[in-house]
């Protein structure tokens, strides 16, 4: 009996000790992360945490999350060229997957990387959570000459700059030459009116859908609304972080939603969500005559297996159709940037990495030649090599010169709201409703406006409608 009790007590004690050993070591509590140059809560990184090899072993490490497909090469290029700092890279998932992790780390005030890859539309959402560092005083001035004003506006809030732009998404119209030829469409539509006419013509002749209205790409719909003159949001984190203007139900937005609702109702465009196997197989098999998409699309499609088999050389690209041909507007979808987080251990070093990664010639070359990024760096955009490049995916078309560079140069930049995930999810609901219930553009625009305004108010914003 006595022996038993002793053993049991020892066992219990061992268990308690074991559990104590499991509990996380004392997290260093650094109060007020407001001051940009205070050390972050995550402590210094270990080389064993990195996916890449560290070249200069005694240099401090800066942790990076990014999902560029050629990131391993880019990180090696940076680390080989810098002996005072080394990038420690991890792929934390693409898009929403990474955002959700970053979002959680921001809420936990611990666990975020020093540098994080974000799309420009998500910057204000994290700015307002005090998650990003203004890099305007941390080496930005030396490189800002490399970028167009539209690219800078997308990563700025007033004078503050919250990320180093890398990759842009000027939009254009990708189309199938074989389908256009078969149904007698001599040139790509220059206006949206022409686009609808061509769509009807193809359908009448028993052809495939002319395009696709995917509910899971609300950013495209937003860009197309802005193209017609909508100004969905006004927000300046630096000036008045509680004031936001929401205008999602203006006439332009209603018109654009109505236009696509009409095409969808008539069966002229598909209703398939994009980035899915069903969609890609449709693209390969010629189920869609056009793809309204951005400059990074050829790279994405190639990676997904498009343009490699029977559909090789069938694609071409033309400028995005316009509402008013005499007054063309250039818009953007996606593209990405590297931001320094407020949890960074050393903000200055982190800024050096954010500004230096994917900025050297070798990385940029690798990126655009393999169509992984559409670089925003003017040193590439102005190089003859890039301008005259014959793009394989487009059957040797000089797509950069003809379409994408002019589109990028004409891009003026968007203003994104500080609650973009919520806005996108509401817009997505309405696009799905257009596809499934034939909701009118007017009803869809009004519904998005109402729910977003209600949400913004519940989050404590002063909303101007």
């Amino acid at each position, binding site marked *: 009996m006595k022996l038993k009790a002793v053993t049991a007590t020892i066992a219990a004690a061992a268990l308690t000790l074991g559990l104590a050993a499991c509990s996380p070591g004392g997290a260093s509590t650094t109060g007020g992360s407001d001051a940009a140059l205070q050390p972050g809560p995550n402590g210094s990184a270990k080389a064993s945490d990195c996916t890449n090899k560290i070249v200069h072993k005694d240099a401090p490490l800066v942790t990076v999350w990014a999902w560029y497909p050629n990131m391993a090469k880019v990180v090696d290029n940076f680390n080989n060229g810098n002996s005072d700092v080394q990038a420690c890279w991890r792929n934390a998932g693409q898009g929403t997957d990474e955002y959700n992790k970053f979002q959680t780390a921001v809420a936990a005030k611990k666990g975020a990387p020093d540098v994080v890859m974000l799309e420009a539309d998500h910057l204000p959402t994290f700015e307002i959570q005090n998650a990003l560092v203004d890099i305007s005083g941390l080496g930005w001035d030396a490189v800002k000459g490399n970028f167009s004003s539209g690219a800078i506006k997308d990563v700025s809030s007033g004078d503050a700059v919250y990320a180093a732009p890398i990759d842009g998404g000027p939009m254009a119209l990708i189309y199938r030459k074989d389908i256009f030829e078969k149904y007698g469409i001599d040139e790509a539509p220059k206006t949206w009116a022409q686009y609808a006419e061509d769509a009807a013509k193809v359908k009448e002749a028993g052809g495939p859908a002319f395009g696709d209205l995917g509910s899971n790409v609300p950013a495209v719909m937003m860009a197309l609304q802005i193209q017609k003159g909508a100004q969905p949001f006004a927000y300046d984190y630096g000036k008045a972080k509680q004031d936001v203007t929401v205008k999602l139900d203006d006439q332009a937005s209603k018109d654009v939603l109505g236009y696509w609702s009409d095409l969808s109702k008539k069966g002229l465009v598909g209703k398939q969500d994009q980035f899915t*196997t069903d969609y890609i*197989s449709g693209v390969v098999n010629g189920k869609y005559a056009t793809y309204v998409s951005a400059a990074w699309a050829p790279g994405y499609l190639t990676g997904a297996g498009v343009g490699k088999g029977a559909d090789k050389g069938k694609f071409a690209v033309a400028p995005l159709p316009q509402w008013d041909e005499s007054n063309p507007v250039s818009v953007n979808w996606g593209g990405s940037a590297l931001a320094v987080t407020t949890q960074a251990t050393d903000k200055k070093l982190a800024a050096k990495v954010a500004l230096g990664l994917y900025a050297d010639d070798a990385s940029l070359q690798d990126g655009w030649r393999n169509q992984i990024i559409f670089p925003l760096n003017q040193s590439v955009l102005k190089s003859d090599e890039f301008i005259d490049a014959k793009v394989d995916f487009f059957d040797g078309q000089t797509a950069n010169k003809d379409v994408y560079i002019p589109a990028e140069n004409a891009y003026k930049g968007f203003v994104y709201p500080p609650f973009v995930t919520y806005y996108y999810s509401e817009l997505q609901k309405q696009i799905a409703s257009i596809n499934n219930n034939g909701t009118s553009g007017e009803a869809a625009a009004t519904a998005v406006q109402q729910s977003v305004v209600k949400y913004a108010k519940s989050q404590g914003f002063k909303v101007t409608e």
Partner: protein
Amino acid sequence: MTAVHSSAPAEVRRPVARRGGGATRRRQAVTGWVFISPFIVVFAVFLVAPLGYAFYLSLFTNGLATGTQFSGLANYVQAFQDPSFLRGIGFVALFTLVLVPVQMAVSVAAALVLDAVTNRFARFARLMIFLPYAVPAVIGALMWGFLYSPTFGPLESIFGLFGLQAPFLLSPGNIFGGLINVVTWQWAGYYMIIVYAALQGLDPAVYEAARIDGAGPWQLALRVKLPMVANSLVLILVFAVIGTLQFFTEPQVLRPIANGSVTTDFTPNIYAYNLAFGFAQFNYASAISFALGIVIFIAVYLFLFLTRKRGSVFA
């Protein structure tokens, strides 16, 4: 002889407890605590503490523009007026109402058949019916995603034979049935095993008696076997109700291919997940989770109350 044996320890214990006083009793109590301490520790660390923390979080309000403030039960007031939450509750409630009878019917029928038939085929069939439960829910949902795919799925070919357009089983109008099918496929085998095990535990002498009294196989199954396994039926009903009200995995996995049918507030759990990890509303998400817990508690309590005559398991 047996009776004497079994009562002996009780008689021994009583005098000790009376005579030995505090020391022995205390030592016994300590030993008892030591033995259950592993459970208590795990229970406290992994269940009580997170629940307590979530409840603590739910008492605060966090606005993107305003920061965090203590707000008491305001989040709960908001939750029970939130159309997204209420619609989600409505969806899972309706889902439960349809799913549970379907699942029960399938699993009970399978169990009764397997109990009545005893050849090699029955053993094989038992394994096959149980197999879907051994497939992880995520893998199962992915598989069904491919089967439902309008491009790759078999439906397209089957309907194509008749020159028809295959329905998309994840469209807003069809997703209800599509999910019922996935969940029934996944869980019916598990419930079947529970009922089957209960049936196997019955005394065959009862069947013999019933047969002598002239009961046919139908009567035997419905009048004798089913009433005798009523306890396990109540058990699987409770499992099914709780599981369905917390519906999350299947719609979340099927979301990317559902063309927008699975919204961010599709079920209460998906809503809480998106609030927390998509919209940075950890506080409100905690409140939604607790509100869901309250609803489930009420539902299960009501259910047990209504079935109290038979459900002695939880009485």
